[in-house]
């Protein structure tokens, strides 16, 4: 649907000296590039705000997972139909603002009266888990393929590049929908829910790798021409050494940046799949699934608002952090 954000350059091709020109001599001593990036990042208030929100979200997600799954304190699927207007038949939450009350701070869902806060809370870990693991998958496949294509060149490159074209040409949503419909939902003795989560991670991760693959390939192509690769080779280094010890460390920065920017895309993707009805099975709460449910009740905007807001805040936080990270790792952006 959208092209991934282009990661421009990497810390590797920037001239770190230029960035450091004039720093007090003492201050630079013993600082790795990572530390410099961290110093820069620390100064970026917005990115830090994003990072804090992400950290909070992760805490919330873990807490939600524990409270819901282990301690069974949150009841995201519990019905409260006594709070629903069945009298008039409108099935809307009784009370104002979607049934907001002390017990249900964000109100309740129409029809079955489930607590929206509890569902958003419970949905947080799934959204984050899927997005993160799918990103990890994309990064692993993309990096491997990209680095191989870029490093070996020739027909290997051609083959992998064409493969990426094939993947990019696939209407991803169509495939996700088709696949989810066809594949079984029990496997490896896992619960259907876990299987579905795994499936979504696989689909999202597997179809997104060419984006990162392209970036890594491009970076590898340019890194490969750098003299330090020749230097390693002239010392008798073998292919794997050059790939993993010389090139990979230089790819970490762009990959990291891209990954933080891919996570929000994947969150949106997961919610899009849920919206199209091929996400996580009911009644498990996911943000996209809630949005999808809410779309049938557009006359009750509160229902749509909260999950929408949750997605928005998360995605925004990741984007802000990713942007900040990119700036920090790429001195040229300053």
């Amino acid at each position, binding site marked *: 649907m959208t092209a991934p954000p282009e990661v421009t350059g990497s810390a590797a091709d920037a001239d770190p000296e230029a960035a450091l*020109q*004039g*720093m*007090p001599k003492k201050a630079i001593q013993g600082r790795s590039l990572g530390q410099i990036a961290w110093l820069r990042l620390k*100064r970026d208030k917005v990115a830090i705000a994003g990072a804090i929100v992400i950290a909070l979200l992760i805490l919330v997600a873990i807490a939600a997972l524990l409270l819901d799954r282990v301690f069974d304190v949150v009841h995201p699927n519990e019905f409260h139909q006594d709070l629903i207007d069945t009298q008039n038949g409108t099935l809307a939450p009784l009370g104002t603002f979607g049934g907001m009350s002390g017990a249900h701070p964000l109100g309740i869902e129409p029809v079955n009266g489930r607590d929206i806060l509890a569902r958003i809370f419970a949905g947080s870990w799934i959204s984050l888990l899927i997005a993160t693991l799918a990103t990890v998958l994309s990064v692993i496949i993309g990096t491997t393929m990209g680095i191989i294509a870029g490093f070996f060149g020739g027909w290997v490159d051609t083959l992998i590049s064409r493969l990426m074209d094939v993947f990019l040409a696939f209407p991803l949503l169509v495939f996700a929908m088709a696949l989810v419909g066809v594949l079984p939902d029990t496997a490896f003795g896992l619960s259907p829910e876990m299987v579905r989560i795994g499936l979504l991670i696989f689909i999202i991760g597997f179809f997104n790798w060419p984006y990162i693959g392209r970036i890594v390939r491009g970076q590898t192509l340019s890194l490969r021409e750098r003299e330090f690769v020749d230097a390693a080779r002239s010392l008798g280094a073998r292919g794997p050494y050059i790939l993993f010890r010389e090139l990979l460390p230089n790819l970490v920065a762009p990959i990291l940046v891209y990954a933080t920017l891919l996570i929000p895309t994947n969150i949106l993707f997961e919610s899009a799949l849920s919206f199209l009805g091929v996400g996580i099975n009911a009644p498990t709460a996911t943000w996209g699934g809630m949005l999808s449910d809410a779309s049938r009740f557009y006359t009750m905007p509160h229902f749509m608002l909260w999950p929408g807001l949750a997605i928005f805040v998360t995605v925004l936080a990741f984007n802000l952090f990713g942007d900040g990270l990119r700036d920090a790792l790429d001195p040229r952006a300053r």
Partner: protein
Amino acid sequence: MTQHEDSLGGATPPRPASSGAPFLQVRELRVHFPTDDGVVKSVDDLSFSVDRGKTLGIVGESGSGKSVTSLSIMGLHKAGTARISGEILLDGQNLVGMAPDRVRQLRGKRMAMIFQDPLSAMHPFYTVGSQIVEAYRIHNKVTKAVARKHAVDLLDRVGIPNPKSRVDDYPHQFSGGMRQRAMIAMALSCDPELLIADEPTTALDVTVQAQILDLIRDLQAEFNSAVIIITHDLGVVAELADDIMVMYAGRAVEYSSAPDIFNSPQHPYTWGLLGSMPRLDRERTERLQPIKGTPPSLINVPEGCPFNPRCAYAGTNGDLSFTLRPEFRDVGGGHHIACHLGAEDRLRIWETEIRPKL
């Protein structure tokens, strides 16, 4: 220090000479860049001047503020990034503080610039011709056809073969030397009175460099403009410049006529420069005489003389080198230096220690 007074009469002192005001006069120029890490004092208290028909060479190490100086004259620093103070008088008008649009009108017309890397300095998407035409038409209300003819003439003038057809080529279709010629053509399109060439030949091979230097020399003779040539290479200034200014850490450390600088340099940094380069015109020395250490940070310029950490003679005059910033002063015959060494010492060191080793 009078033994050099008979050197070339063209030497222009940095302060207004008796014979009318020079075309370009820079006074106490300071260009500071506030950054996250502190204020970068790229240019600090710099004064010099150039007359029409004369060439000033500026030499100095990388990062000594040469380019920043030239960009300040052209008014090309990005708005808001640089703090500029002092005066830059172009034909009597102060460019510092002048409305940006008025400076713009002067650019290209009265002052023009040639950059180091002609490939990146030209827009890759426009033909060479159209870039020259554009430069010409900003300041001259002429039709495209006329401007194009002008461009062809200029290309011809700077020695590009087949200018009629090459005018429609893109920069990447030119070789390095031709690109630099085209840059020069562009700079000359409005007959500027001041031409600044910032390392015009660093990216070029020796044989091509020689062609370009010849070209600049010839053109200057023809157009009678004031020229500033900035370079690392003492050889290049020796070929072109009437006067030479040596910069170190954002300041001028020595300024005099070209022969003066080469025959009787008086600043230890200049000595260092001369000593560190192998020379084709001298007998091969066994060892080069490098300047020790590395250039200072422009945020924390050393106390006293900025050159003191690298200077072999820093302690000669008591603590002065470490505490007092040496004044940039005329030591006779328009020869300016910024050094605490006494006149005797300088002469002695040059004659006995430095010169024999070169």
